[in-house]
C-alpha cells in the first residue's frame, strides 16, 4: 500500500521562474492538502483540494495555485518565484471527512537562487 508520494525530491530554480510540484495521495484517500515549511518553522497550510476543487486556502498569494485531477493526484504551481519561496513543500492526503488523520509525503525541497 503506497503512501503519499511527491516529486521531485529536490529542485533548484531561479528567481522569477515558475515551478510545478506533484503529489499522489495514499491509496483510498480523496483529499489533498499542501503545506509550506520554512527552515526552523512548522508547516503552514497553503490550500486543500477535494473533488477537483479548492476547498480552503491559507494566507498565500495568488502566485500559488493548484489543481486536482480525477485520480485525486494534485499539482502545486508557484509563479514568479521569490527567494522567500525557498522551503520544503509537503503534500498531505486524507479521506474526505473532517475527522480523518492526514498522512504526509516526504516533501519537495525547493531552493530559489
Amino acid at each position, binding site marked *: 500500500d503506497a503512501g503519499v508520494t511527491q516529486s521531485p525530491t529536490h529542485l533548484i530554480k531561479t528567481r522569477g521562474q515558475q515551478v510545478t510540484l506533484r503529489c499522489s495521495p495514499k491509496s483510498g484517500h480523496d483529499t489533498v492538502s499542501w503545506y509550506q515549511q520554512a527552515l526552523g518553522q512548522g508547516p503552514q497550510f497553503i490550500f*486543500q483540494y477535494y473533488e477537483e476543487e479548492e476547498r480552503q486556502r491559507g494566507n498565500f498569494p495568488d502566485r500559488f495555485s493548484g489543481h486536482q485531477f480525477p485520480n485525486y493526484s494534485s499539482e502545486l504551481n508557484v509563479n514568479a518565484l521569490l527567494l522567500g519561496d525557498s522551503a520544503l513543500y509537503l503534500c498531505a492526503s486524507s479521506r474526505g471527512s473532517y475527522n480523518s488523520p492526514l498522512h504526509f509525503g516526504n*516533501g519537495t*525541497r525547493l531552493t530559489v537562487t
Partner: protein
Amino acid sequence: GIQVEQSPPDLILQEGANSTLRCNFSDSVNNLQWFHQNPWGQLINLFYIPSGTKQNGRLSATTVATERYSLLYISSSQTTDSGVYFCAVRMGSQGGSEKLVFGKGTKLTVNP
C-alpha cells in the same frame, strides 16, 4: 485563529531517559495529531488523538480535550528518536477549518 503552543522548545536527553512533551491549544478541536520530523525532513505520523490515551511501543500520548492540552511521552529514548516533534490541530466547530495548524515543535536530541 487557533493557537498551538509546544513546550519545551528544545530538549536534550541521554539515551535511555524518559521525556514528556506538551501541546496546548486555544480552542476546541476535532483532530489532533503528533508527528516526528526526522533530520531528512520526513514527517511521520505518531498518533491521531483528538481525545483519550493511546500507546505505540515506547511512545504514548494523552489528550485532555476539555482542558485543551495533549502530552506525548517517550520512554527509554534512543538516538533514532532525535528530530523535531510537532503537534497539529484542526478546529472542531461546525463548518470548522480544514487546515491543520502546527505548533513550532520540540527539537529533541538524544545523545548516546
